[in-house]
């Protein structure tokens, strides 16, 4: 059972354009929604995260939009740059019986920003 669905699987954007990646979740116990960026050969690194008590969070060129009623959230990358070319994962956590913050990941989006 895939609890976090992510789309698109891959995305090509022109330099300066807006990259948009979408995720949907099923588990209403989730209460923390981070986005991770991963470069080849590296581990994922936290990009930006949101809690469900707000509908939007912006950090620099990166914005998360969150729709609690629809159980959807998205990542917007403004003014996309070639250095943003990476794989992006949405994730969710919360309500784990053993406590902790285990992350349930989406399937990833390979972003390529072309000159």
């Amino acid at each position, binding site marked *: 059972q895939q609890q976090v669905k992510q789309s698109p699987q891959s995305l090509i954007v022109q330099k300066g354009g807006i990259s948009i990646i979408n995720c949907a979740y099923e588990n209403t116990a989730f209460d*923390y929604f981070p986005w991770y960026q991963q470069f080849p050969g590296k*581990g994922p690194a936290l990009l930006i995260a949101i809690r469900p008590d707000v509908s939007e969070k912006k950090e620099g060129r990166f914005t998360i939009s969150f729709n609690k009623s629809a159980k959807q959230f998205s990542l917007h990358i403004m003014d996309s740059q070639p250095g943003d070319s990476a794989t992006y994962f949405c994730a969710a956590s919360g309500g784990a019986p053993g406590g902790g913050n285990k*992350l349930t990941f989406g399937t990833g989006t390979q972003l390529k920003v072309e000159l």
Partner: protein
Amino acid sequence: GAGVSQSPSNKVTEKGKDVELRCDPISGHTALYWYRQSLGQGLEFLIYFQGNSAPDKSGLPSDRFSAERTGGSVSTLTIQRTQQEDSAVYLCASSFGGRGTDTQYFGPGTRLTVL
């Protein structure tokens, strides 16, 4: 200073052999997580440690997988009688605590290939 480190970076083994993967978390981080990243299954949670205890082992795929953590620091993931489907990148992450908003910092992973 240093981030999460993992060793070895690459491991090639024969089917049926046992392997041990090591994780050194960021100093002072009480929470430690193991994840597995494979082409077919994406990023999957395996186990969560708080200190030396493992309150959530729900992601371990079979009893061939085990993990321990000693001194509230280093963790070892052991896979016994490896199978080809165990081939994946094994990622370790640590966080300051196990709360919902505590950022997980990932290591570079160990790429395991089972021949």
